[in-house]
């Protein structure tokens, strides 16, 4: 594409005006990013807020005690969510560590095809698949169980687990493993004492990814988890559809905290050299 036929107008903006414009655009972006977050935070501490009041009429933490009361179900949903997330991480690592190790070897035949295969669950819209998984699971007695929900979550997280694990193993040089083998270590021992510890930060990052995917997963749980498994996102949906803004906002905040923590810490685990080779 060439733009030569449409020469862009060269305009010089005086320094102050261009600073103001820059300031305004960045301010607008900040308002768009943080406005919705701030609105939610205000709702978590609003006891009464009616249109057209610009701010709550009464502030306080009354709704927090409601959310954390046992009969509200939010605490139970939180523990269910955390349990499922931990189980999903365990299953994903058990599958992704061997698979990632195999995929880190360039000599593996059809390697790029296998890498693409794991991308499938991200490359198709999932809702139609989830409802059919639920139908198949129903015949197996897996709907409404924690195991069924864990399996659906693991499928959604597996591409990240496998790709990051593969990148983490590939970032280890062959030399150290060779050295261990030359000193008489068996392949398994070399893997356990050299490769695995060196890949651990990358594997940690993939575990965090899978944990968050499981914590936030909605449509799989919606179809497979009914009627007995209620995770935090489903609890939030119910509160929101019942029009209870405070409860929904407090639940949203509970879901938000792990994600924000992750954003602050992920760079510590996911080194640039690993990140650059994810999916390659």
């Amino acid at each position, binding site marked *: 594409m*060439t*733009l030569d036929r449409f020469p*862009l107008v*060269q305009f010089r903006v005086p320094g102050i005006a261009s600073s103001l414009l*820059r300031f305004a655009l*960045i301010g607008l*972006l*900040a*308002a768009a*990013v943080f*406005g*919705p*977050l701030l*609105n*939610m935070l*205000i709702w978590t501490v609003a006891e009464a*807020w*009616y*249109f*057209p009041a*610009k701010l709550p009429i009464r502030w306080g933490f009354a709704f927090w005690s409601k959310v954390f009361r046992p009969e509200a179900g939010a605490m139970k949903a939180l523990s269910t969510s955390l349990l499922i997330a931990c189980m999903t991480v365990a299953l994903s690592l058990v*599958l*992704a560590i*061997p*698979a990632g190790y195999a*995929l880190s*070897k360039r*000599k*593996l035949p059809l390697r790029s095809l*296998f890498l693409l*295969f794991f991308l*499938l*669950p*991200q490359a*198709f*819209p999932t*809702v*139609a*698949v989830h*409802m*059919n*998984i639920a*139908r*198949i699971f129903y015949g197996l007695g897996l709907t409404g169980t924690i195991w069924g929900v864990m399996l*659906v979550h693991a499928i959604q997280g*597996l591409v990240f687990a496998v790709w990051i694990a593969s990148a983490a193993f590939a970032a280890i040089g062959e030399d150290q493993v060779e050295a261990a083998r030359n000193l008489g270590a068996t392949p398994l021992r070399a893997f356990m004492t050299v490769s695995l510890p060196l890949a651990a930060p990358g594997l940690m990052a993939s575990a965090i990814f899978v944990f*968050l995917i499981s*914590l*936030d997963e*909605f449509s799989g749980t919606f*179809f497979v988890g009914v009627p007995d498994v209620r995770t935090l996102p489903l609890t939030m*949906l119910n509160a929101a559809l019942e029009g209870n*803004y405070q409860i*929904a*906002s407090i*639940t949203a905040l509970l*879901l*938000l905290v792990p*994600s924000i923590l*992750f954003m602050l810490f992920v760079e510590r685990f996911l080194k640039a050299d690993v990140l650059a080779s994810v999916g390659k």
Partner: protein
Amino acid sequence: MATLRLRKSLPLLALLMPALLMVGLLFVYPLLFSLAYAFRDESSGGWYLGNFTKAFALYGGDIWLTVVVTLLSTALVGVLAVAIAGYLTLGENSRAVAALRWIYRWPMFIPFVVAAQLMRTFLAKSGMLNNSLMSLGLLEPLNAMSLLDWRGVVVTFVWKQLPFAALLISGAMASMDRSLMESARGLGAGRLRILLEIVLPQVSATVWVSLILSFVTMLSALSVPMMIIAGSPTMLTVDMAWRVNSYGDYGVANALGFVSFAMSGLAAWFYLRQGLREGGQPT
């Protein structure tokens, strides 16, 4: 020689097998099941196209709405992501670049469900958006309206997916050779022109990847339309859930699923064709 190589890689294939089986059994099999049962007449056990005629008759409007919302959101994500990534790469005011870098990433790690809840409060008639516009005198209280319909879905999708696309694109721009940009700058080319004529063509593969992944993610989102749109017209994902949960009607639900697979399939085909035309391997 070939057999030797195969035998050497057998242990590796064995290590790979459990994960492959998992995706095969829990994703590919239900996917094929869904595609096949879109043509199934479950009452008589035959195969027919009745599910599709019923799906188009009942949800034709929703199919169009889904197409428009996802395409519009993807286009907005593309334009804004290129603008943000371009400023991060070519911006000359280091403080503005640092501020932008700090701000734009936040929504990326916020779950879709949470993003939908944020927008439910923010875009409501009494939400912060309207309140702020009224306080600034930009909106008359009488004209205040709720944006919680398809527009709210577009806003939520763009808000949530923009950082992901901008991150990928700015990463690709950062790894470019800067000498061409700098010599063009030295010759007096404007930054907008450098972005459009020099930078963008070199990162077009990354732009397409990020847009297609965003498009499929939006097609899959169930929670966002469910929480933001009350009633109809709504998006296909909500219709599928409704069809299954209220009527146990898997035929029409799978026909709608087929339509959404076809949309993502078209996107994938478009991407592959783009990659071939550029004469390179799609990355």
